[in-house]
């Protein structure tokens, strides 16, 4: 490195130490309780009235031993009596502005507009359940029940007795209306096991894939079968006939080559566990990602599961995936750790140079605000970048039409100097190849290729960038002007960019550069965009070697 490392100037900032938790189920209660135990005040914004768990469904606590159920009651009491937790009943999120450490959040609560300041925000919504009997062509009636209805029935001693006295035959339909998941399967397996244990009762399960990918489910599945439950594993739904109270289920068994018909007393139809419909507006207002299934946050390997694209906004438990309580608790413990790391005692020092706006140059066109994937940019009469929220990717710096933004150790001057330096390097008559490499992926892969003694082109030079989104089109053109025979822009795979869209911006810019090269008659083979992961040393080597070959062939 020839660029001089400057002493980084730090600035002290104050972070608000109130934390907002949105949601009303056990996850939200546990999140509020844990955060408060770390000395922070919590504002718990819930849709319902009251203070206990919102979620009335019996299955929320399925499989939790009695001893632990007491803990949930204790949790409800703790939240109700905790003077560090303020509950906003009947509240809906209306607006959220600001940056980590200084969010201004508005709720409509009991018809009133309430404004709160907070250091961080936690989304802890629950999933919802939907009936699927229509997909099976079944009308709801006394002997066609949803899984929730059947579970509730099993909690009543009288109704249990009735089922048992009548030697009831119960058929379950699972996995034909949708893919399903282990949490749903656990509920089915638990009910099946329960029925199978009752003398005279029989459980038949018509099931597609048995989703046992969670702790203890395979054993639960076996327990049910050992007690006499019968499983028919089919790829397609059996034929179901409902004629008033008469139900028949028929399927063709390929092994014994005949139709198998059953007339159950009760049919229990699976449910679908869906993302909370509130997630949509939460995602929109909080400017965080939502996946195609409506859960908050898209999977991004570079982040902890509870982190979002925005620093200071966290998602836990069933707001981000269909998770049981134990796994939701795992999330919440992780989130609490992250809140503590971020907010601390409210006093924080941050690097001043993370992303610096030249207020002389800024024309407040808001390009930066629009392209920042981390919601780190706001403005007074000029753009301002929050040093806490900024992840230093540099997408804004390369998109800014006024070149008014400079990033930490990757300023235009520094990168320009690197380009000059690498273009001037002696390469023993081999083609000069300059590779702009994302530090999260390609740069690591390149270093690994060197460490593992891959036969890399002698004329290859890597320039590290914080994200491929920092690769300005000018860098690419400059590299060619300064004498590079080939230029590579190497980014993370689609969906793997730490800053969401840095790789997409890089690809667009390379495509723009192609058009320019074409206009001035420069061979397009001299420029390439590629995606890599940090552990792909051999792929890195292949890409750079291929480029050298192509250039050498053209020249000879």
């Amino acid at each position, binding site marked *: 490195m020839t660029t001089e490392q400057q002493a980084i100037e730090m600035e002290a900032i104050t972070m608000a130490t109130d934390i907002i938790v949105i949601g009303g189920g056990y996850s939200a209660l546990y999140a509020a309780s844990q955060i408060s135990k770390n*000395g922070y005040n919590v504002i718990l914004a819930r849709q319902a009235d009251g203070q206990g768990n919102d979620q009335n469904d019996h299955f929320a606590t399925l499989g939790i031993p009695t001893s632990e159920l007491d803990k949930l009651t204790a949790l409800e009491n703790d939240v109700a009596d905790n003077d560090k937790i303020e509950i906003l009943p009947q509240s809906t999120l209306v607006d959220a502005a600001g940056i980590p450490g200084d969010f201004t959040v508005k709720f409509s609560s009991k018809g009133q507009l309430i404004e709160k300041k907070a250091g961080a925000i936690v989304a802890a919504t629950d999933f919802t359940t939907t009936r699927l009997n229509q997909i099976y062509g079944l009308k709801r009636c006394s002997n066609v029940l949803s899984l929730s209805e059947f579970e509730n029935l099993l909690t009543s001693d009288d109704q249990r007795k009735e089922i048992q006295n009548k030697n009831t035959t119960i058929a379950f339909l699972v996995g034909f209306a949708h893919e399903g998941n282990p949490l749903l399967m656990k509920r089915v397996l638990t009910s099946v096991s329960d029925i199978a244990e009752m003398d005279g009762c029989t459980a038949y399960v018509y099931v597609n894939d048995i989703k046992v990918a969670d702790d203890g489910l395979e054993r639960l599945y076996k327990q049910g079968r050992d007690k006499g439950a019968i499983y028919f594993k089919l790829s397609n739904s059996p034929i179901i006939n409902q004629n008033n109270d008469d139900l028949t289920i028929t399927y063709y068994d390929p092994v014994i080559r005949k139709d198998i018909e059953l007339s159950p007393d009760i049919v229990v139809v699976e449910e679908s566990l869906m993302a909370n419909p509130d997630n949509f507006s939460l995602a929109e207002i909080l400017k965080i990602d939502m996946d195609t299934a409506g859960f908050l946050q898209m999977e991004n390997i570079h982040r902890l599961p509870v982190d979002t694209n925005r620093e200071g906004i966290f998602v836990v438990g069933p707001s981000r995936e269909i998770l049981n309580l134990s796994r939701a608790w795992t999330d919440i413990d992780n989130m609490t750790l992250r809140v503590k790391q971020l907010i601390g005692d409210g006093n924080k020092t941050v690097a001043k140079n993370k992303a610096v706006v030249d207020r002389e140059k800024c024309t407040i066109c808001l390009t930066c605000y629009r392209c920042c994937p981390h919601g780190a940019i706001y403005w007074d009469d000029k753009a301002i970048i929050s040093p806490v929220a900024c992840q230093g990717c540099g997408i804004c710096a390369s998109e800014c039409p006024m070149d008014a933004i400079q990033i930490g150790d990757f300023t235009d001057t520094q990168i320009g100097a690197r380009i000059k330096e690498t273009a001037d390097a002696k390469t023993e008559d081999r083609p000069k190849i300059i590779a702009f490499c994302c530090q999260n992926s390609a740069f690591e892969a390149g270093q690994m290729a060197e460490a593992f003694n891959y036969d890399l082109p002698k004329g290859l030079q890597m320039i590290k960038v914080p994200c491929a989104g920092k690769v300005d089109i000018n860098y690419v053109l400059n590299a060619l002007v300064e004498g590079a025979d080939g230029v590579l822009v190497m980014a993370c795979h689609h969906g793997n960019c730490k800053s969401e869209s840095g790789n997409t911006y890089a690809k667009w810019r390379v495509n723009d550069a192609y058009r320019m090269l074409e206009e001035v008659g420069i061979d397009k083979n001299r420029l390439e965009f590629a995606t890599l992961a940090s552990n792909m040393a051999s792929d890195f080597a292949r890409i750079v070697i291929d480029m050298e070959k192509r250039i050498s062939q053209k020249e000879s």
Partner: protein
Amino acid sequence: MEPKNVMVIGGGIAGMTAAWELAESNISVQLIEKSGFLGGHAIQYTCKATSECLNCGACAVEKMLKNVMGKDNIGIHLSSQIEKITQNGSYTATIKKSPVFIDDKKCTNCGICYEKLKDTGVIVRGHSKNNVPLYAICEEKLADHGDALKDVCPEGAISVSETASHTDLTADAVIVATGFEPFDPDIKATYGYSIHPNVISGLDLERIKRQNGSLIRPSDGKAPKKIAFIQCVGSRDERLGNLWCSQVCCPYALRTAESIKYKDPDLDITIFYMDIQNTGNTFPAFYESCKNNLRFIRSIPVDIFPAENGNLLLRLFDETDGTPKKESFDMVVLSIGIMPNPENRNLSTLLEISLDEDGFFKNLHELNQTSTLNNGVFIAGTAHGPKSISASIAHAGQAVSGVRKYLGGAI
């Protein structure tokens, strides 16, 4: 709060994550790893991306290894094992360091030892450039090739002494992150894993891809054209008493199959399975794409016979039409499951914590999956049961939060 010190046993993804999260909380860490490298099983895994990232998590392991190597307050003990633990409010462990190791202070990663002794296998290279040192000694090969090690290193970094050294370390809390043992496919003898070169395990596939950049057949180095994946090898197996789903093999096989099919669209891939398990929220859409690219047969093959040119004949009973079938493939990948580490039993005695009926470490509370009978001891990762990379990372984070609560000052 007084400066605290925590011992993390096991340097795989869970142990590394725990170490790093503790260090980030200004707690100093002693990280004990049995092998010569940090990273565990997961550092061997390859990227499964097609035109897009499939969220396998392999690159997260790479990143965590780099994080841990660059952190000041993590003491790393490679080739080291716990021999004894005494408890007296704190935990004092006697660590036995193997007499055979490469000194990280002297090693310059020049690779001379590896190049010179390549044929003997006595020097092994780490899977990541972030492994320091990049090389280690394979103890199984010592008896035959030990002498060759003596003068091979120009820096004198290779230590081959007779007696192991012992060190006592004291810690305020312990995190057990000893990981899993891959199922030994030879136990399913009818698959002929050790007999047919082109029957490989999922882990073998990862190693081949790492070494060659693409998949080749061990028998002739050629790219396979027709591959079978057999799921649930060792998992969900009543006869073996393995009553658990390993949770990672369906995602693994599907992502791997999609990724190699993307690179070679002519490849013919069949997945033999019992039940396909999900990969996450977006699984339905992903599975649809898989169904377009791969053939799925709900049946687990009974046995594998050798055929011409190193090909393999699978015998199975097709549940969809109820007929026995035979089909030839040129490579078979066994999706081997996650088994409890056989050393768990000894460690559970040393630490006075319990195992579950399957041999994994058992959590004390249902709602805290890292808690144990011993208040200052926490479990992280697959030592507790099958987990994906991201689930192991989350579990380790929870263990750290447990440690912080235990040490006082809330989290």
